[in-house]
Every structure is written in structure tokens, then in C-alpha cells.
């Protein structure tokens, strides 16, 4: 009877430990496959090399890092004000019932698959950008597949993350802070901008870091709308290639050496994401509150 209980407990423990095994295996395999490529090219040349042309055996991923950074920063520039605005709207302006509806709308945005976002971007945003770009510089031959397209779509995709975590933080600001502010004669705007938001800043910061992580890790949307040209983008209308998009696109026809290089990109991506997520979690834990 007791042995049966002990056996069951062990089995259940193994199930709990699956996530540890999974992360360990993932790390091992990605590194194992990718390290040879990094060793072959040399770490610095790999990360800072500006020539990504696998057909010539050249594996410098700076253009890809630049592409990922460009769309991510663009997404943040658009997404942070929008996200914070929605968060303030949700917790300060709406009453409980209305807030429920708005929250559902945000959750709906979160539920749309990335490939659908990519398709929408391709069908609607890209042509619009092409039109605008041709107005500004008609000779540039812009296709609309660009950093800007990526930034816009990614901004929409990371909005729910920024909103939900920021809202939690804002709601957690004690009523007493607000009351003190009103009692001193401040109006709602001043209270929100000078008291509430600063008090919630660690949660807001975490939400931004997590949103950044999601943007960098996003694949399908950027694959469809950024153009996948492995050159450092020089403007928002330029096409670009992200780390994620490159991996997804070239994996299907890559030869052994090329494949290893793609895994090496995976290593860089993995490290960046783990650092970002770790930073966000650490800030959250230090200042209280939970990740959504």
C-alpha cells in the first residue's frame, strides 16, 4: 500500500520535472547544433559580421540583429504610449462593467494567431506603406515590406502584454497615494502622471521588457511583412530581416553548414530572451506583483 503511494508520488514528481528536462534538452540541443558554426566563423565575426550570405559561406548576423532591433524598437515606440494609454483608460477611466468589455477586447487581440497578424499586415498595412513611401521617394522602389510594417504589427501584438501587466501594477497602487494627491489640490491628470504611474513604474517596466521579449521572439508576422532582406535597414521604409524570420525561412533549404549557422542564430536569440525574461521576472519579484 505504501509502496504504491511512493511510486505514484515519484511518477508525479517526474511529471513536474518535465519542464526542467525540457529546458535542459532544448538548451543542450540548440547549443550543440549551433556551436560548431560559431566556432567556425569566430564569435565576434559571427555577431558583428555584416555579410549574411550563406551561399558564399559568409555568416555575419549583424544585419539580422539590426533588423530584429529595428522592428522591436519601432514596436516599442508605437506600443508603449498606446499600451500605457489603454492601461490608464482601463483602470482610471472606465467603471467595472465597461472595463470588463475593454479587457475582453484586449484579450481578443492577444488571441489572434501571429500568422493572421502577418497576413493582415501583408494585405492591408504593406500596400498602405508602399503608397506612402512612393509619395516620399518615388524612385526608391519601395514595396511596403519594411521595418515600419513590422513595427506597426508587432506593436499591436505586444499591446495586450503591456496593457495587462501595467493595469495590474496601476491597480496595485494604494488608494492612499491618490487621496493624498487630491487632498493637496492636484487634479486627476496630475495624480495619474505624477503619482500613480511613477508608483507603478516597476510593473510597467517589466511589462515593457516582456513586450520586448515577445517582439524579438516573434516569427510569422515579421516573416510575412518585413521583406527578409539581410541588410542593415537604413530607414523605416527599408526592408529588413529578423533573426527569427531568417531561421524560419532558410531552414527548409539549408545545407548542413548553413543549418548550423541557423542554430547559432537560435543560440543568440535564446540568450537574449532568457536575459530579458529573467530581468523582467527579477524586477517583478523585487517590487512585488506577478507576471500575467
Amino acid at each position, binding site marked *: 500500500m505504501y509502496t504504491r503511494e511512493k511510486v505514484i508520488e515519484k511518477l508525479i514528481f517526474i511529471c513536474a520535472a518535465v519542464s526542467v528536462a*525540457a529546458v535542459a534538452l532544448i538548451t543542450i540541443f540548440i547549443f550543440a547544433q549551433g556551436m560548431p558554426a560559431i566556432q567556425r566563423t569566430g564569435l565576434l565575426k559571427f555577431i558583428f559580421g555584416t555579410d549574411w550570405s550563406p551561399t558564399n559561406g559568409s555568416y555575419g548576423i549583424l544585419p539580422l540583429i539590426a533588423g530584429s532591433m529595428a522592428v522591436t524598437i519601432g514596436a516599442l515606440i508605437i506600443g508603449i504610449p*498606446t499600451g500605457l494609454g489603454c492601461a490608464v483608460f482601463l483602470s482610471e477611466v472606465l467603471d467595472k462593467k465597461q472595463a470588463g468589455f475593454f479587457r475582453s477586447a484586449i484579450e481578443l487581440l492577444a488571441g489572434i494567431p501571429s500568422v493572421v497578424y502577418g497576413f493582415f499586415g501583408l494585405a492591408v498595412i504593406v500596400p498602405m506603406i508602399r503608397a506612402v513611401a512612393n509619395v516620399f521617394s518615388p524612385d526608391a522602389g519601395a514595396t511596403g515590406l519594411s521595418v515600419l510594417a513590422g513595427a506597426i504589427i508587432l506593436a499591436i501584438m505586444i499591446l495586450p502584454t503591456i496593457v495587462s501587466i501595467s493595469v495590474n501594477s496601476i491597480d496595485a497602487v494604494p*488608494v492612499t497615494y491618490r487621496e493624498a494627491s487630491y487632498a493637496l489640490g492636484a487634479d486627476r491628470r496630475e495624480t495619474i502622471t505624477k503619482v500613480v504611474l511613477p508608483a507603478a513604474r516597476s510593473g510597467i517596466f517589466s511589462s515593457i521588457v516582456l513586450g520586448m521579449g515577445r517582439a524579438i521572439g*516573434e516569427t510569422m508576422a515579421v516573416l510575412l511583412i518585413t521583406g527578409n532582406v539581410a541588410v542593415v535597414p537604413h530607414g523605416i521604409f527599408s526592408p529588413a530581416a529578423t533573426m527569427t524570420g531568417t531561421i524560419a525561412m532558410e531552414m527548409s533549404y539549408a545545407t548542413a553548414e548553413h543549418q548550423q549557422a541557423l542554430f547559432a542564430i537560435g543560440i543568440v536569440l535564446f540568450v537574449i530572451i532568457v536575459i530579458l525574461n529573467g530581468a523582467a521576472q527579477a524586477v517583478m519579484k523585487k517590487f512585488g506583483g506577478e507576471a500575467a
Partner: protein
Amino acid sequence: MTESVKKRQSGIRPVTETSLKGRKAPRKEAHEKAFFGMIWAVAGLTLAVLFLILGFILVKGVPHITWTFLSKEPEALGAEGGIFSVIVGTLAVTVLAVLISTPIGVAGAVYFSEYSKGGRIIKIIRFFTEVLAGIPSIIFGLFGFAFFVVYMQMGWSVIAGALTLTLMILPTIVRTTEEALKTVPMSYREGSLSLGATKWYTIKKVVLPCCKGGILTGVILGVGRAIGETAALMLTIGGSLNIPTSLFSSTRTIALHLYMLASEGISDDKTYACAALLIMIVLLINTAANRIGRNISK
């Protein structure tokens, strides 16, 4: 919280009105109006974008979701015919992933909630579960390819995709099950133990039955994630348009098919139809999860 503050706010007259003879008031009011004007604009913009995306795709896509579309197999790389084999592939991969991940995820949550005594081991496992939840899908794709497709020699197949998906939805199931377990009162467990039941018997017969709703919610959310997943499956299931006949057949899912159609520019109509179908499925899943979630908290 906000309501009580707002109620009080309406009773407060700003100091500026009386003491500074209205010098500052108009400017402050202008700033306040502008601020909230922007807030409303931003929120409105967000809603507008949501409706634009949903509306655009549904309007252009739903008319093309015909019975033929759903029941015929694809022809000419998907430019004609339907998506029957893709639907089968989607079901195969998703159902398999759910069947594998649910018992493991529930068991994991049970361990956290019922067996562990806090301490370092649990903290480590929890940390790794959070890490797992944050790994981007393309990395899962790379892993799935290197480990399941190549190392385990499964080839590009339903099973390789399903196992990769399992790892991706596992944290969701663990999290929602744990939430559900927390709501079961201690007194139920004590009642059972005091009658001479063992710990596992108590969990099986008393605790878990209380959590059915929560577990179901987690499963549904997992299904939602699995159906929308593309990058990880791109590298593991192969993309064949034939109906999968075994676990080791190559196949395609609706999301992957949408990507193929969109990137190759094949048939606008079919692409919109696929996108619309995906959105409808996601809407359905969202509603189902919310419904069940509300029923539990009754």
C-alpha cells in the same frame, strides 16, 4: 478602488478655483482635457484596430468558407479545392498534443500543490517552468527539428509536431490546474484523510474532481495556442498536403497552410477563407474558455 476615489473626486473643488482667481484653472483644465482626450483616442484607436482586423478578414473570408472548402482536398497547391487534409492534420496534431500534455501538466500541478514542501527543489522547477513558458516558438521549432525529427528519427511528422506542441502548452496547463487546485478547501482533504484514505486516493477522488472546470479551461487555452502555432510546426511537420495516414506522416495545419498561401501569393480567396476560419476558431475557443471560467467561479 477607482469608484470610491471618483465619487470623492466629484466632491472636491480644486484649490485653484478660489485662491488663484482663475489664473491657473483654464490652463490646468486644458491640460486635463487634452490628457484624457488622448487617452480616449488611444483606447478608441485600439478598439478600431481590433474591429478593423476582425472585420476585414471575416468580411473577405467568410463568403469563401463553403462546405466544399471544408470537405474537399486541396488541389494545385491549395489554389483550388478545399482544405480537408489540412483540417485533418490540424486535428491530429492538436488532439495528440493535448492528450499528451494534459496528464503531464495536471500531474505536475498536483505535485506543486499537494506533495511539495516548498524549498529549493520546487523553486527550481517553478523557475524552469516559467523559462519554458517564455521561449519563443521558433526556438521550439529548432529544438523539435533537432531532437524529434532528426535525433529521435521521427522525421517530419504528426508526432514530431505534436510532441513539440506538448512542450509549448505544458506551462499553460500547469498554471491553470494549479489555480484550480488552490481553490479546493483544505477541509475536503482533511475530511477524506480522516476517514482513512491515502493522499493519492484523496487527490484522485476528492480534489481533482473539484478542479474539472479549471483543468478544462487550461486545456482549451492550450488548444487555442496550438491551433494558432505556426513557426514551431513549420520546422517539424513537413507541410504535406496529403491526408496524414499515420503518426509519422507529414502534414499541414490550418495556420501553416495560411502562411504558405499568403507567402506564395496563392489564391486570395482561399487565403482569406483560411484566415477567417482561424479567427472564428480562436473566437470560439476564447468564448468557451470564458464561459467555463465564469461557471467555475459561481
